[in-house]
């Protein structure tokens, strides 16, 4: 089995593996769009088909796929790659030395702690939660009772009553709209709900909609709406079109 000739059928690429590698190296294929896992799956499928473990092929595949993964990882984190690439050997040595020094100090500090533990190992003491009594809050300075009473009286005044006048909603009777719609339907076989009630107040529109539902329940009309929030079209039941979607057919 020759890995380079492995036929791939991916979303981003179709063809042999070595062509894929060539395209990637020439920057003609964006690795970000490439599903590396799919390549691995394709290889595994081929491997199982042959029913024998081809170690050479596996090794080659591992090398190639890991190189591909590394390229892809670098591509996904471009800034970091640039940062590392920009380091001169001198700087790299300094950075490495700095990190090593930092770790070495902490390692020695750990050694110091270990020695300390051995020296202090024969100190025994009581450990446990500290059920300390809650701290006493400092008492307030004495106050003049008359002033306190005055302050309380100020707060004891009942607040002015809130007017609820605006809360009383006036609902026009549903019947009014039933009659209105019926008379409209006598003149026209169909109409647009929004156009018919567009000039009314919100409450009136709501009641008009109730009237609509009432008419629909009585079977006098059918209602159509192509999509949510689309215009609602009303038609007399006797002129209902068969090809349109209606509440009745639903």
């Amino acid at each position: 089995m020759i890995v380079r000739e492995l036929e791939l059928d991916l979303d981003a690429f179709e063809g042999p593996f070595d062509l894929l590698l060539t395209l990637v190296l020439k920057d003609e294929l964006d690795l970000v769009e490439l599903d590396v896992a799919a390549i691995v799956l394709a290889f595994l499928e081929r491997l199982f088909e042959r029913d024998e473990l081809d170690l050479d092929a596996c090794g080659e595949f591992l090398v190639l796929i890991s190189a591909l993964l590394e390229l892809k990882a670098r591509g996904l984190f471009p800034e970091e790659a640039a940062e590392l690439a920009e380091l001169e050997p001198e700087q790299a040595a300094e950075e490495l030395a700095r990190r090593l020094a930092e770790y070495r100090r902490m390692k020695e500090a750990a050694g110091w702690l270990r020695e300390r533990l051995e020296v202090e190992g024969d100190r025994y003491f009581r450990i446990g939660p500290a059920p300390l009594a809650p701290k006493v809050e400092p008492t307030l300075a004495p106050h003049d009772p008359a002033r306190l009473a005055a302050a309380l009286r100020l707060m004891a005044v009942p607040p002015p009553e809130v007017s609820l006048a605006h809360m009383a909603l006036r609902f026009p009777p549903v019947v009014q709209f039933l009659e209105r719609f019926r008379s409209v339907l006598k003149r026209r076989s169909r109409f647009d709900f929004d156009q018919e009630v567009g000039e009314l107040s919100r409450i009136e529109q709501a009641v008009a909609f109730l009237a609509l539902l009432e008419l629909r329940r009585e079977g006098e009309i059918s209602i159509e709406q192509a999509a949510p929030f689309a215009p609602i079209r009303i038609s007399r039941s006797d002129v209902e079109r068969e090809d349109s979607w209606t509440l009745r057919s639903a």
Partner: protein
Amino acid sequence: MDAPLRLIASNPLDQLAKTVEALLVVASAPLTAQDLAEAAADDPERVEAALGLVGERYREGRSGIVLEHVAGGWAFRASREAAEACARLIEKPAQRNLSQAALETLAIVAYLGPCTRPDVTRIRGVAADSAVASLLERGLISEAGRDEEAGGAIRYRTTPLFERVFGLESLSELPRLDDLGAGVDEIRDRLHAVAEKRTA
């Protein structure tokens, strides 16, 4: 001052010293002079003086109980002479079998704390999750808020128990970081020598 110092009845601090002694006996964590002063309802300076008397009475070699200044406060502990007997009586779960990884993590938290798990990982070069979990369980470190800059990672710091277990009056008793890391310069020189060869 080799003569045995008695808490003479005429000493005005006698009563306060007894109170301090009693408070230290019932406390399970070190108490600061301020804590003691508040509990005894007395003046902090007089409490300090009384602590001097108590310390004189309870010192190593003189009593089975020893007064020590530890973790920023005052506490009684067993005398070192009694350590073996104590070991037969009680466990020391906080410091038993501390791994190298845990000790290094502890050192990093002690010096750099409050610091996050990624900070520890960066310095040690390996994940610190289990070491941090173990130290938390032992009560040697505790959570100390979150690092808002590093994506809200939890920060840790050492606890008073850490200072007590290691017999430290405070974290400032740790050796200075600058005094640690002998041989660091040698490593740096060697690395630079390698770098020069590569540039050449």
